[in-house]
């Protein structure tokens, strides 16, 4: 054993603790070509404790998680498990050592039962290699009761909510006797009730001595769940502190390296004539009788729970989804149903909910992605030259302050926030009249979030009709002039900027009684 490294780890840790360090990473570096994804990764997880890892996108959190998960090998630095130096060459090594990762969107086998998913490849067996379903289901039930959740092990994974899928993943981790559970932005797609339940499970895990690494952009959650916080910035470790000894503002300062100003209300001149008119829009089973308008210069938010039908309405307006009845008009002219190109010709743009799947062609270049909505206007004599495309993209990257290595790199090399800016650039470069933005800041860091908000407000100021869909109420309240609330496929309430409060919106989104306000 190398004595100097030993001393570095145990002599150099600034926070001494009576708890045992389960896994620790020090001085980790990871390069991808010329990109320094991680310059100085350092974190120490203790048994029975939740440790938050926060930082803007591109701070190196994902890289660090992937090192723990065995997906990446650090170029240098040391990884210790129970004080012994270990090397994870594959996810299997990490799992065998007792590290489990719960991703934001788990990937279960939909056609297998919950118990089969938990015991994949490790099913208890009877004679002739038959699966012992009875003891498998029983074992699953034992785990669920340990986690104090009510989930039927014999049901199919198909149709489980994301929150339930995460619980199944956690159960799987427990069945593997995981001692470290990493939760990578688990709450991004969860409702507040589900977050609450996840936290209860996490508390149970802590009590049983599991070390939790919790990654989230929501700082309030960090303070609710975690004893310890580590902040990273630009691939470097910034600080580790007990969460009882810090506050949100201090963390945000450490994350962005500067103060973030909170936006104040702005007054805009809103055109009284509606630009986007949606009338009686209905799609059987998803939404019914949706009517609203958005005026030029106005920001209207479509709020409600996940699954209330908001994104479905947005995609129907844009035309990637067909609707059964109703009409969509821009400037008084009705659009062709189910035709994105007709919607685009009328000046509608859609920044979709899932930027990796719907917003971007991940393996193509940044330039190509920015230009993707503008191919027709970029051609000269029928042809597109790469240089024209690149100039166009460079122009918009500057306007939106996209941080990139070079525009010819695939868009997957960008951080989440910058990827979102690429999608925004794609649409802003078409000078839309109506822009629909669906969860514009999901999974992106605080600094970029503020920039995206500023861009949306600037667009409105320049006369664009903006429809925002967001699950984050502070965002909705921050941006919108009017707030529409959807529940179970119907519009149930409308608030103006002044009359809206988080409580009123939540009430409208969850209660069955219709709320009339403002």
């Amino acid at each position: 054993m190398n004595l100097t490294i030993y001393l570095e780890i145990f002599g150099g840790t600034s926070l001494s603790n009576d708890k045992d360090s389960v896994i620790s990473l020090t001085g980790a570096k990871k390069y991808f070509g010329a990109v320094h994804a991680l310059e100085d990764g350092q974190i120490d997880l203790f048994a029975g404790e939740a440790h938050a890892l926060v930082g803007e996108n591109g701070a190196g959190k994902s890289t660090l998680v992937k090192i723990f998960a065995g997906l990446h090998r650090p170029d240098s630095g040391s990884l210790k498990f129970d004080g012994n130096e270990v090397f994870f060459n594959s996810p299997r090594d990490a799992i065998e050592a007792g590290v489990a990762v719960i991703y934001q969107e788990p990937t279960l086998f939909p056609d297998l039962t919950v118990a089969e998913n938990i015991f994949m490849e490790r099913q208890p067996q009877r004679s002739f290699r038959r699966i012992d379903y009875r003891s498998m289901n029983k074992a699953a039930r034992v785990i669920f009761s340990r986690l104090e959740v009510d989930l039927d092990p014999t049901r199919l994974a198909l149709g489980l909510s994301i929150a339930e899928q995460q619980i199944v993943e956690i159960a799987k981790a427990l069945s593997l006797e995981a001692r470290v559970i990493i939760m990578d932005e688990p709450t991004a797609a969860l409702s507040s009730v589900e977050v609450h339940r996840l936290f209860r499970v996490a508390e149970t895990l802590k009590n049983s001595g599991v070390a939790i690494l919790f990654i989230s952009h929501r700082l309030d959650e960090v303070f609710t769940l975690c004893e310890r916080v580590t902040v990273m910035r630009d691939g470097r470790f910034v600080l580790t502190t007990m969460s009882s000894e810090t506050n949100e503002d201090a963390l945000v300062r450490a994350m962005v390296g500067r103060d973030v100003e909170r936006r104040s209300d702005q007054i805009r001149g809103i055109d009284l004539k509606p630009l986007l008119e949606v009338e009686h829009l209905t799609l059987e089973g998803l939404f019914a009788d949706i009517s609203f308008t958005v005026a030029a210069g106005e920001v209207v938010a479509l709020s409600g729970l996940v699954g209330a039908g908001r994104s479905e309405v947005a995609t129907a307006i844009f035309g990637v989804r067909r609707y059964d009845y109703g009409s969509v008009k821009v400037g008084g002219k009705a659009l062709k149903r189910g035709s994105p190109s007709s919607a685009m010709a009328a000046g509608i743009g859609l920044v979709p909910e899932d930027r990796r799947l719907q917003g971007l062609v991940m393996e193509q270049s940044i330039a190509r992605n920015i230009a993707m909505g503008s191919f027709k206007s970029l051609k000269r004599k029928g042809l597109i030259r790469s240089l024209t495309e690149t100039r166009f993209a460079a122009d918009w990257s500057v306007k939106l302050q996209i941080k990139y290595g070079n525009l010819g790199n695939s868009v997957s090399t960008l951080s989440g926030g910058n990827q979102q800016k690429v999608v925004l650039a794609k649409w802003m470069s078409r000078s839309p009249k109506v822009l629909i933005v669906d969860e514009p800041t999901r999974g992106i860091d605080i600094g970029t979030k503020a920039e995206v908000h500023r861009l949306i407000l600037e667009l409105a100021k320049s006369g664009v009709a903006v429809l925002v869909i967001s699950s984050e109420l502070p965002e909705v309240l921050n941006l919108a002039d009017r707030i529409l609330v959807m529940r179970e496929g119907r519009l149930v309430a409308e608030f103006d900027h002044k009359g809206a409060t988080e409580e009123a919106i939540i009430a409208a989104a969850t209660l069955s009684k219709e709320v009339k306000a403002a």
Partner: protein
Amino acid sequence: MLQAETIELKDDIDSNRGAKGSFDVRSLVRWESGLGIVLIASLIIGTVASPQFLTSANFFNIGLSVGDIAIMALPLTLIVISGEIDLSVASILGLSSSLLGFLWIHGWPIQLIIPVVLIDGAILGFINGFLVTKLGLPSLAVTIGTLTLYRGIALILLGSNIVSNFPASYTTIGVNPIPGTPLPWSVGIFLILALIFGVVAHFTPLGRSIFAIGSNSEAAAYSGIKVKQIKMRLYILSGVVCSLAGILFTFRLATAEYDNATGLELNAVSIVLLAGVSIFGGRGTIIGVVLAAATVGAIGNALLLANFPQQAMGLINGGLLLISVFVPNARELFGRLRGHYARRRLVGLRRG
């Protein structure tokens, strides 16, 4: 501030221009330059194997052997880039050939037969496109189905008849090269088509859209690209071009038979994959197809001259196909192997 932004913008373009040369092109050219080396190697082997190899008569033969297949490979390339496949290409060729023969023995004039055959190709392509885009069926299954279906129709049309009394003025294209060159007509047509396809694929909005569809058709649809319409048009285009190849094929052999070009779809697919076109869509170049076609022709001819048994040519085609799927993924495969052994070492250590 404004000035600073302008300067930054200029830097961006400059750095990007350099990077474009180093990233985008390099990764694509690497495969094509590898192909170029293989082509040169097969030319050298051919030259060594036989003194006849480097003669213009032999170049004509090489051209004849791959011309029609290479023509079919062009629209197929676009279809594969868009993430689909068309295995019915050789059957469309065969059916077009049969239709040509059928109409000829029924006394139609050639000037009328040719447009009718091309329209027939468009209809056959439309059927493929309809099944794939409107009904949403997987193109692999659909075109395996139409592969046998179209061949069956050809059999019904012509039976076991062999039509070969075409006017000599047409069938000379199988004997005489384009005046002033050693190239047969089919190669000339291939090169012209390749130029058009290359420009469309790499320098037009349509080409950009095809690549986007192949990489992520959902994101393409969310960008306003008419995914189904474009795929439909590619299938129709494939049908038309394959029936053109059918006409050339028939005149070249001066024979219309129901089983013309049977099995050649696999040669077309080999050329497309050897060209470096990703079978998963989203990647590929037309210049690669040109090089791959030349390579396949040169290797086949060199082996022929070296008295390699013709029945075993499948060995070469199959081998090339596997190599062209293997090589692009080789790095990842080796990486996986390395990880595997590293893990075994680790496990060994842990046990020790």
